């Protein structure tokens, strides 16, 4: 990639790493450069290594690579943690005046740049601005004007008043000037700027924004990493659109509140991560049986149990597909990019209401908590369409009354979708229940009614298969013998890996699948390939199992469950090895 720079700031959790990284990312975005960020972090609020990484280019960036050009190291450990990614010519900025950094030895071949971050920050008005001094130094190293940092500083500190902004600007300039005047550092990098306007957002934010655009007015949730950002995003914004966010006492309550709001007729949503979907699974069945439209965001993290709460994994696929006792019709959507988080969220609300069904909307951690630049037109509100399905207005009630004048809320229609009367609609009062029920929503154990209701609920899924476009996206060489299939956030890294593989003479056809259930039938694609490799971030290859099940073929698995997302170069190597490898397709590696 042209003009590609990999930058990071690392230190202790609690050092303000995240917000500092975001300022740098936003500055680059304001400079008309594309940005893709990633995070290494521990779940402890204070203590433990954490880093925010930014990859930037004038071209779109969709993934991270195993390379670091500029590192701001607030701790010695930061350098150790990144030794594999630092290379000849990489610049390490650190404060040699700090006693903890006094013994730092920058490895051979790399450029160590000692900048007195603390002293300069104090000169600007306070040690708290240490990280901003570092950003100023980094902008000089990266060869990009410090003025772009100003805009990002206003965005970050504007609310705190002009004096604070001015001090931070000064801090950034002191950092820049120190590198310029007090070190013998000479231009290594020179970042081009453009006139493009980009927005910078993460997957959780894209989901939250899309929910509002789609008319969601009720969100109940319980704080859980990494889904909390959705709730925090909506709080303070959804109210301006006539909605409310409720912080529930637990996930059981959260999904039941959302269910209640949906029964009342609101577009409603809850969001959580793995432990939360376990707790919600009993009510999930009720949502499906009562045929209530509900969107449940599951931002995946490493499991099982508490697992690694701040680490990447795509391990909940089976839990979302099969979670809950009995047989539960459902949809599972899994956007593959931050931009697509927006599209699938809007779609999730429409699908939920059109088919009166629970919809899992799942993003993996790598999508949810890392930022990426987009052209603002990517989020085109004019194109957002709202389809509420078969909501019955007062004039339409009579058509759905039985001979005794009772509303048939679970009428076994041809397409499986029943009329939906929102509470308050005259003469349509009805109940529903988690018990098996008749079309009036009342308990029954009669065999024929049971069969009819099970079939009508399942029929909705078949209707959706016919009416909706649950398709995949295709990249690479359509005629290649090697077929790679992935889901979730791997798409970005895989797309970049395609170019690397092509350079090595390996042609690959790549399918990225955002629909887990219902999902596209890939039988033809799988049968026409020689090597089929399914890429995912879990140990057993849960999506690979589905492909094998669907196509009655064996596939190879490239899996990763270290807690870190795939990087493009790493993935290229894995694909190459898988093609060359004679290992049994079922073998789980790494």
């Amino acid at each position, binding site marked *: 990639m042209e003009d590609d720079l990999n930058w990071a700031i690392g230190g202790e959790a609690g050092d303000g790493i995240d917000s500092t990284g975001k300022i740098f990312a936003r500055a680059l975005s*304001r400079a008309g450069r594309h940005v893709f960020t990633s995070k290494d972090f521990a779940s402890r609020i204070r203590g433990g290594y954490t880093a925010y990484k930014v990859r930037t280019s004038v071209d779109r960036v969709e993934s991270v690579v195993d390379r670091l050009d500029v590192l701001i190291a607030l701790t010695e450990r930061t350098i150790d943690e990144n030794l594999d990614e630092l290379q000849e010519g990489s610049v390490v900025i650190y404060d040699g005046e700090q006693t903890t950094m006094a013994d730092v030895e920058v490895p051979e071949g790399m450029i160590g740049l000692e900048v007195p971050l603390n002293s300069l920050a104090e000169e600007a008005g306070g040690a708290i601005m240490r990280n901003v001094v570092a950003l100023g130094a980094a902008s000089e190293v990266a060869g990009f004007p410090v003025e772009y940092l100003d805009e990002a500083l206003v*965005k970050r500190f504007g609310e705190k008043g002009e004096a604070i902004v001015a001090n931070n600007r000064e801090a950034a300039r002191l950092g820049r000037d120190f590198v310029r005047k007090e070190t013998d550092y000479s231009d290594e990098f020179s970042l081009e700027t453009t006139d493009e306007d980009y927005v910078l957002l993460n997957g959780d934010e894209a989901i939250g924004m899309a929910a509002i655009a789609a008319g969601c007015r009720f969100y109940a949730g319980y704080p859980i990493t990494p889904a909390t950002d959705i709730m925090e995003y909506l709080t303070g914004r959804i109210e301006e659109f006539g909605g409310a966010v409720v912080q529930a006492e637990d996930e059981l*309550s959260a999904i*039941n*509140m959302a269910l209640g709001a949906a029964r009342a*007729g609101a577009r409603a949503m809850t969001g959580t991560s793995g432990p939360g979907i376990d707790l919600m699974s009993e009510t999930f069945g009720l949502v499906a049986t009562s045929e209530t439209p509900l969107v449940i965001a599951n931002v995946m993290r490493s499991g099982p149990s508490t697992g690694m709460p701040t680490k990447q994994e795509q391990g909940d696929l089976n839990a979302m597909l099969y979670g809950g006792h009995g047989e539960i019709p459902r949809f599972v959507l899994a956007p593959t990019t931050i931009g697509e988080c927006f599209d699938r969220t809007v779609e999730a609300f429409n699908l939920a209401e059109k088919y009166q069904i629970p919809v899992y909307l799942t993003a993996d951690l790598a999508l949810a908590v890392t930022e990426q630049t987009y052209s603002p037109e990517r989020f085109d509100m004019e194109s957002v369409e709202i389809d509420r399905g078969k909501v019955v207005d007062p004039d339409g009630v009579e058509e759905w009354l039985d001979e005794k004048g009772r509303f048939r809320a679970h009428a076994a229609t041809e397409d499986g979708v029943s009329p939906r009367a929102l*509470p308050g609609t*005259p003469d349509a*009062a009805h109940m529903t229940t988690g018990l098996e029920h008749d079309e009036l929503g009342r308990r029954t154990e009669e065999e024929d009614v049971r069969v009819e209701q099970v079939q009508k609920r399942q029929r909705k899924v078949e209707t959706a298969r016919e009416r909706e476009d649950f398709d995949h996206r295709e990249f690479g060489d359509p005629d290649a013998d090697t077929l790679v299939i992935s889901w979730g956030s791997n798409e970005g890294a895989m797309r970049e890996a395609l170019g690397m593989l092509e350079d090595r003479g390996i042609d690959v056809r790549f399918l990225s699948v955002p629909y887990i259930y219902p999902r596209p039938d890939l039988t033809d694609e799988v049968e026409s390939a020689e090597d089929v490799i399914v890429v995912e971030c879990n140990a057993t290859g849960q999506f690979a199992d589905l492909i094998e099940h669907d196509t009655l073929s064996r596939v190879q698995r490239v899996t990763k469950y270290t807690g870190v997302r795939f990087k493009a170069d790493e993935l290229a190597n894995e694909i190459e090895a898988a093609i060359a490898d004679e290992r049994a397709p079922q073998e789980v590696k790494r």
Partner: protein
Amino acid sequence: MSSDTHFTDFKSDKQPTWCPGCGDFGTMNGMMKALAETGNDPDNTFVVAGIGCSGKIGTYMHSYALHGVHGRALPVGTGVKLANPNLEVMVAGGDGDGYSIGVGHFIHAVRRNIDITYVVMDNRIYGLTKGQASPTSRQGFETATSPDGTVEPPVNPQALALAAGGTFIAQSFSSDSQRHTELVKQAVEHDGFGFVNVFSPCVTFNDVDTYDYFRDAIVDLDETDHDPGNYQAARDKIMDPSTEHIGILYQNEDSVPYSDREGIDENMADIPEGAPERADRLVREFY
């Protein structure tokens, strides 16, 4: 809302399968009367029920209703009410549903002061599963799962509610139809979380907390000098579980429901006017 609603309008055509003599008949009748007498009708009423004998109520009443999972009726009622404040929301549960599996939600619903009515049909036994000790069973109560008598003291629901900041705490007796109806009605009219624990005897599995027992033991607070607005007096009454009080134990006349504090007053069933286009400014926030 129509003013000529009769309580039988809230009756479905499904015949209850409660045991003959079950206290739940009286409890339900009082709920229907209270709804009718407060000017509600089935089309603007939402009943939420949990699991247990009490859970069947949604089937026997006629209104918008959800019969949910065990213990989660209050969160459902909370969601319904917040999404459409125009609806009259009545949540029914039993002592197992409300004070055992759902006790966490009970405390938080009280604390939030959601403007709904919560009627607990307290029979001090698990009836639907045929006679196991419940959280309100007396200590020493002998059941299939406690053949030597329960060793746990019963919970004190009113004390939980008071500690959680309850604003309307009452108790009634299902067979005292007029008084029970009146108390549920006051709970409906209360601006906030109206909680009524109802002695609703189980004639099949509880031979201790019987109609006769309650008739003898009950002290009606209306026949005492109790002032429900007096917090200290309410606390003293509530912390004396040896007396079976009926009446309003505590009512905070200054109660402000959650929705008022949060400024929630619209029916969220409608998509906000021009939602997608207006959301355009959200994109610009990300510059």
